């Protein structure tokens, strides 16, 4: 997908939570090990984030802007559409949902809102890259 950053769209499936093919836009992030959802996207998928975040975090996430907690969703399937429209399915044992720290002020809250969902190396390393005129192609 063309733009400033490299984004990819995929259908998100989590059978045991009843999530059946909801599209999500991910930023392709080679600096991130795990595929990660924001709280906003988790809500859009119908996940009860209050319940999810009531448990113990399974991951500490660190980035340029600070740190966050990661909570797992298990047995996820992502379905991409390749260049000729054929579905390509990737299974993941876990995907993390980020719980960001409470913002210190309104400006920080707004900055946090633009943090995207991330496709991590858990998916990316299954492909090889090709860049061509501002577009990135993932190839098996």
């Amino acid at each position, binding site marked *: *997908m*063309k*733009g*400033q*950053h490299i*984004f990819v*769209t*995929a*259908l998100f499936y989590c059978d045991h939570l009843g999530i*059946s*093919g*909801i*599209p999500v*836009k991910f*930023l392709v*992030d080679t*600096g*991130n090990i795990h595929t990660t959802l924001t709280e*906003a996207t988790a*809500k*859009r998928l119908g996940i009860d984030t209050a319940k999810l975040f009531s448990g113990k975090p399974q991951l500490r996430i660190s*980035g*340029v802007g600070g740190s966050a907690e990661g909570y797992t969703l298990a047995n996820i399937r992502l*379905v991409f*559409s390749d260049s000729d*429209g054929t*579905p390509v*399915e990737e299974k993941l044992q876990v995907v993390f949902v980020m719980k960001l720290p409470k913002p210190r002020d309104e400006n920080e809250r*707004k*900055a946090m*809102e*633009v*943090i*995207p969902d*991330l496709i991590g190396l858990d998916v990316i390393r299954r492909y090889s890259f090709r860049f061509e005129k501002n577009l990135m192609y993932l190839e098996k």
Partner: protein
Amino acid sequence: MIERADLDKLNEYTVNTQWLLENMDKLREKLPDRYVAVCEGGKRVLDAPSMDELLEKLTKSTVHAESCAIDFVSREVYALIV
């Protein structure tokens, strides 16, 4: 097995996402610091001050909510370093 309808939904969502990314600067002027849903290839744009309110608005509207691309449109331009 992936249903044809799901792939159509993904294609529609991808078109809406592309429209949103390409029109982010215009949206920034018109709808700063709002959550925005782009639907039907940019023909319908819904907005709200929070994600919860936008999702509620989408539920009540006639658009196919799952295919709409949703983003927070910040007034400021942030460079993402990930």
